[in-house]
């Protein structure tokens, strides 16, 4: 880390924002993001208008499709699960001053790890044991794929932003090769054979059916609980442990971390390992929990969307959960769009995603500064003596 600072690349990594002491948490944590989100959706509405449809009707179809308990809600939660993992991955790295945009590649390689483990052991293990193996395989493979860029930044000065971008493409090539030439089923699709049903845990609607609760079939599975656990775990790690404190110190002030006798290099590597492991868990949700096989491009951009989730959630686990739910709903809602509005392609989600990242993160000051100035002026008038 210290080497990257001295060669001027340090500024590439976003620093966690300092908390303005006099601003209440709801202003910075709720009001500002809500306004930014509204602005992003407003511009997205212009795109919908350009296409010749009504933005309000579009939004209504998306939200009703995504939040209807009898229909899309379970899928929304399934997508939100993946996004929680990738969002937490970005958030953890961010607190250590690292920008890990390699979640997509880490999830890819984790999917490969899960698939290899399942293809090898699914005839021999029962479902609970297989689940545990899948979790370990996903974490290990994802962490490994993040370890290399982490190591290269810590010891060799290769900036993690650039190398994780490159590693996304390297992972895609690796997965493509494995599916085409090594572990593919040889059928039409580029995918592995299905894992043995005896090694699979039931999905939520399957698990609840014997209890008399009937749900629409969906991919929602036990990984959702794992995601909630991870969110709690990340909060505990970052704000209740020595390691978390060290990581945040490194992120806030690398120089202070060095004076405190911490090793920036090993903290950088540790942060990337945790981050990659979290991103990798997305493969448990998808490859093990939902599909029961490894399909090419299974991540579907969820790794990248994790960046939007983390930024929108202000890198706090609770915020990540809320943002994951929001983006999960948008993702599910955009798949419903095509039925009612054949002129709008489901890729509208990418437009919204881009605009949200743009207004929430890149153009942060556009909304934040006026709002904060306005609030301070208002509160000064309330308490002229303060």
């Amino acid at each position, binding site marked *: 880390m210290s080497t990257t600072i001295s*060669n*001027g*690349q340090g*500024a*590439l990594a*976003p620093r966690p924002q300092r908390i303005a002491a006099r601003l209440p948490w709801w202003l910075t944590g709720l009001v500002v993001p809500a306004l930014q989100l509204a602005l992003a959706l407003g511009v997205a509405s212009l*795109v919908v208008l*350009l*296409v*010749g449809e009504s933005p309000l009707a579009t939004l209504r179809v998306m939200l009703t499709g995504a939040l209807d308990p009898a229909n899309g809600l379970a899928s929304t939660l399934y997508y939100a699960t993946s996004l929680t993992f990738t969002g937490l991955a970005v958030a953890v790295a961010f607190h250590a001053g690292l*920008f890990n*945009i390699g979640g997509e590649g880490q999830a890819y390689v984790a999917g490969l790890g899960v698939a290899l483990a399942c293809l090898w052991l699914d005839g021999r293990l029962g479902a609970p044991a297989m689940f545990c193996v899948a979790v370990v395989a996903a974490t290990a493979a994802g962490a490994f794929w993040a370890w290399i860029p982490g190591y*290269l930044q810590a010891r*060799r*000065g*290769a*900036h993690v*932003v*650039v*190398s994780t*971008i*490159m*590693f996304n*493409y*390297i992972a895609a*090539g*690796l997965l*493509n*090769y494995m599916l*085409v*030439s090594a572990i593919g089923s040889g059928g039409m699709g580029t995918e592995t054979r299905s894992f043995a049903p005896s090694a699979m845990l039931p999905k939520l609607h399957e698990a609840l059916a014997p209890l008399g609760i009937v749900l629409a079939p969906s991919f929602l599975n036990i990984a959702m609980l794992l995601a909630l656990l991870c969110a709690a775990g990340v909060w505990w790690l970052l704000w209740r442990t020595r390691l978390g404190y060290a990581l945040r110190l490194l992120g806030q002030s690398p120089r202070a971390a060095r004076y405190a006798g911490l090793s920036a290099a090993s903290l950088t590597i540790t942060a990337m390992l945790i981050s990659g492991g979290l991103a990798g868990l997305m493969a448990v949700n998808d490859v093990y929990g939902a599909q029961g096989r490894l399909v090419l491009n299974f991540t579907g951009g969820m790794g*990248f969307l994790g*960046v939007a989730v983390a*930024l929108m959630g202000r890198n706090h686990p609770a915020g990540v959960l809320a943002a994951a739910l929001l983006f999960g709903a948008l993702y599910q809602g955009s798949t419903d769009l095509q039925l009612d509005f054949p*002129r*709008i*392609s489901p*890729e*509208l*989600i*990418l*437009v*919204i*995603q*881009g*605009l*949200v*990242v*743009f207004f929430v*993160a*890149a*153009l*942060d*000051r*556009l909304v934040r500064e006026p709002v904060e100035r306005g609030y301070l002026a208002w509160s000064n008038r309330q308490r002229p003596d303060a």
Partner: protein
Amino acid sequence: MEDIWLMVLSTAASAIRLACPLVLAAMGGILAERSGIVDIGLEGKMLAGAFAAATLASQLGSPWLGLVGGMAAGVALSMLHGVATIRYRGDQVVSGMALNFFALGLTMVLGQAWFEQGGQTPALDAAQRFTPIDLPGAETWARQVPVLGDFYRIVLSGHSVLVYAAFVLPALISFVLGHTRFGLRLRAAGEEPNAVDTAGVSVAGVRTLALVATGMLCGAAGAYISTAQNAAFSRDMTAGSGYIALAAVIFGKWRPQPVLGACLLFGLLTALEARLQGQSLPGLGTIPPQVFQVLPYVLTVVLLAGFIGKATPPKALGRPYVKER
């Protein structure tokens, strides 16, 4: 022997054609990054340029109008990047990423809504495209001259005008950066923005101009892909070449001529991938095509890690400039 020579030549010609969009975009990347702005949004600008160029060329019937439209689309995205990173001092990586998503989604949504062909634009005929130009004598006397004649005929002749422009460009950029007032200011903005400010020149202005040029070049790169290499726009047609161009910028250490070399190398890898598909090489066996696909990225990471030389980025790269009071 004759056959192998012809095969080498046609692979070289194909490498040149494949390198063209990389060169255009990478030169744009050099200008942005040397002025101090990280631009991972090359990809999005290329995609927007490709879409605008194919759309306009098909509607107006001229590839040149398409090119202008593609460049305008690139500049528009570049200016969004500029507003976010220069005016509002936002994170440059985040902004570039956001604009990549935006361009990817927008081209698909608009393409589907306007043409209803699954995101494709209408197929372009020869008059709406940039077609290969035969250099003088390529088909006449070059056939008489052994070896060099074939080289002239296959490798040098028969490219579209954009390819020739792309290969003049690095020298031009080199000259502008090294020998003009603007180039000096641009490099200073990327190394010591304070010095630019002290000299009474606006850092924001210099960086904005650099981004305008980046947008134009990326737009032209996209226009090449959709109206010269292909005959329509299709979904996500740049397929990561913006990131390969970014890799080339780093691999060429932010200097025009070496970056040109990197683009040619990466173009050659893609050409070899197509050429060696399914063929067995003596001593190596069949090389999986994925090896060629990932090599540009692997090489760039290896270079960045300092295993082959040292890549030192501009000193103020990624830092918003805040005027001192």
